[in-house]
């Protein structure tokens, strides 16, 4: 069932083609968490270990019912750090694995992220963002983990892949995409969704038979030979290491040799970092996903991702109906950050659900003139169309952004 796009808009994502395939399907009215669960099952996920937390809890609820139905395992971990480690262990044993949490649990996973990234273990991690820090507001959307998802463990010397959906249907396809990228890049792929996209109910089309998706889903392939870690290489589509097949693989927390032995030589760490950074950087063209409208002639481009992009898009469409030269850019791939989408010298209105300004700083870095990048931050509620309209009108007219209660425009 093809995705409907607004006139003149572009969607760059593999599911544009996937959704056009003639597959028998069924349509339901369901939540983002349901779609995410089904996307994982369809992608071949057979292991989940996590801890309930709003608004990711329903993923655990759904997947605890679905995994036994497909011969998989649901483990309710004692905490989120254990959950991600269990997923890494299960993935090492050959199962596609996923965990899901929200901010307070997500921040506990840093050590486990590092272990999985450094050892090139494919796992999908879902962070359904809410207002923080800590417990914050349980049932309201936030976008405060933009940088945390990139710098998700200590030590540097790695890149990460982070994707963000903004509809229930997109969540289904994007989850399959995340599992595919995890396999191809041998890394942890993070899905940054949020409370709105998780809990909202929309039309969801699902294939009746997930086996029909065989051409889309990247299967698990086992690496039975040395080198287990091709340090110094940026190759992707390298098969996955496995424990339990007699390969003699070694997996550890230390900087390691191609065989997996711990080593304390600078040259070895250079080679490992080269791989962990460049396998993603050198294939960024495979990772670019976004939605764009009217960028070619826009004087003002509104930038957002996730739930925030919903109201931003409405405001842009209405402004364009009134003849204003405004465009819309919705990031789906957040990391590696798509610098190439910000080449145009326009005014950028970066709308995100936080008050400290995160996405806006990357846009400032990537855009030709950072003085023309404006922060439009809000928290706990989506930007209203009226707020966005006032901002777009002001920027088009060359006026400063209006001072609106609950909107933050300062970055310093």
């Amino acid at each position: 069932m093809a995705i409907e796009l607004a006139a003149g808009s572009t969607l760059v994502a593999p599911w544009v083609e996937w959704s056009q395939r003639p597959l028998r399907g069924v349509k339901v009215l369901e939540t983002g968490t349901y779609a995410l669960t089904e996307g994982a099952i369809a992608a071949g996920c057979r292991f989940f270990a996590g801890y309930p937390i709003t608004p990711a809890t329903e993923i655990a609820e759904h997947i605890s019912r679905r995994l036994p139905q497909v011969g998989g395992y649901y483990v309710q971990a004692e905490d989120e750090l254990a959950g991600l480690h269990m997923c890494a262990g299960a993935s090492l044993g050959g199962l596609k694995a996923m965990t899901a949490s929200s901010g307070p649990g997500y921040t506990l996973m840093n050590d486990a992220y590092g272990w999985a990234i450094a050892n090139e273990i494919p796992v999908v991690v879902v962070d359904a963002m809410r207002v923080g820090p800590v417990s914050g507001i349980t049932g309201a959307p936030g976008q405060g983990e933009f940088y945390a998802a990139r710098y998700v463990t200590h030590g540097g010397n790695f890149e990460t892949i982070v994707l963000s959906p903004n509809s229930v249907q997109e969540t289904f396809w994007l989850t399959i995409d995340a599992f595919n990228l995890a396999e191809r890049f041998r890394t942890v792929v993070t899905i940054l969704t949020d409370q709105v996209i998780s809990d909202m109910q929309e039309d969801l089309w699902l294939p009746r038979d997930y086996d029909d998706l065989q051409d889309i889903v990247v299967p698990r392939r086992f690496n039975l030979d040395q080198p287990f870690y091709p340090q110094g290489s940026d190759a992707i589509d390298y098969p996955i290491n496995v424990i339990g097949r007699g390969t003699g693989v070694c997996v550890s927390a230390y900087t390691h040799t191609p065989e997996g032995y711990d080593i304390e030589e600078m040259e070895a760490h250079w080679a490992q970092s080269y791989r962990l950074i460049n396998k993603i950087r050198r294939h960024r063209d495979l990772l670019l996903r976004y939605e764009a409208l009217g960028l070619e002639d826009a004087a003002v481009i509104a930038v957002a991702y996730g739930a925030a992009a919903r109201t931003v898009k409405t405001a842009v469409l209405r402004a364009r109906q009134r003849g204003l030269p405004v465009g819309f850019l919705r990031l789906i791939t957040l990391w590696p950050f798509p610098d190439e989408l910000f080449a145009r010298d326009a005014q950028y209105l970066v709308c995100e659900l936080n008050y400290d300004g995160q996405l806006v700083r990357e846009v400032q870095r990537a855009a030709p003139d950072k003085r023309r990048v404006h922060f439009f931050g809000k928290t706990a509620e989506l930007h209203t169309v009226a707020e966005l309209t006032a901002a777009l009108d002001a920027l088009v007219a060359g006026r400063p952004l209006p001072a609106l209660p609950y909107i933050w425009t300062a970055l310093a």
Partner: protein
Amino acid sequence: MANKLAVKFLRASQIPTKACHGCGIGMLENWILQAIDELGWTCEDVVFGTGIGCVGRQNYATWGGDNFGATHGRALAVATGLKLAQPDKKYVIIVGDGDAAAIGTSHLVHAARRNLGVTVICEDNMGYESTGGQFSPTTPMGYVMNSSPYGMVEPNFDPCDLVKAAGATFVAEHTSVQYLPAIKTIKRALQNDGFSFVHLRFQCNENFGQYALGTRDTLKNLAWIEEHTTGRRADGTPTDFVWQTGIKHDASNSRPEFSAILRELAARQQLPHNGPHLPDNGH
């Protein structure tokens, strides 16, 4: 190396390990190899998992088969996922007192609660020796260590009590002079299809010896272990405390093993076809 079990089971390039001279870790690994050999298992049958610290580093990558070294304290979390994905392998999880009794105690308790089918060998040198000899939750009370210069004032505990209370089906404790009973115990632990916990206390000359005993002499440090195993010093006087060694709890094979529980659940619930579970999708 000349040890025939090491030739059979270990990786030549990783031996000798970075262990200090006289460290007990190599002795204990030798005993584990004997237990594995007497059970007739091969490198393909057994997966070693370790943690961080002396015990983690000195055991990591020595085993000839597949092995992993997890982050500090989390070896059992990784082992939980692994055991579910590869249930037919034997898992020997060798961790130190820091991993098991401090940072990783939560995972220890829950693995015991779930009766995960792994054998945990907690090799306990009664301190964080790798970082220079700070005290740990198993350091004897009152002992001077690198971070207890006035004597350890924090209460300590025995992780054996903890795992037994949490539901472990095999719990035992030995020291690094009890090689024959330890090998027998390890064999029994390995044969339990459930959570086995073998607590092995051993000597550390460089740090524990330096701070707590005032000597790095290898013979004196091993003699200290021997004295606190028997409760008697060489001159016949009693020691300040004595460890209770032996098999403390043996309910081997009496409870369902965790991965078996989940496999049976999947077998009961599995649907005939792979698609959304909806009334109008044939379900």
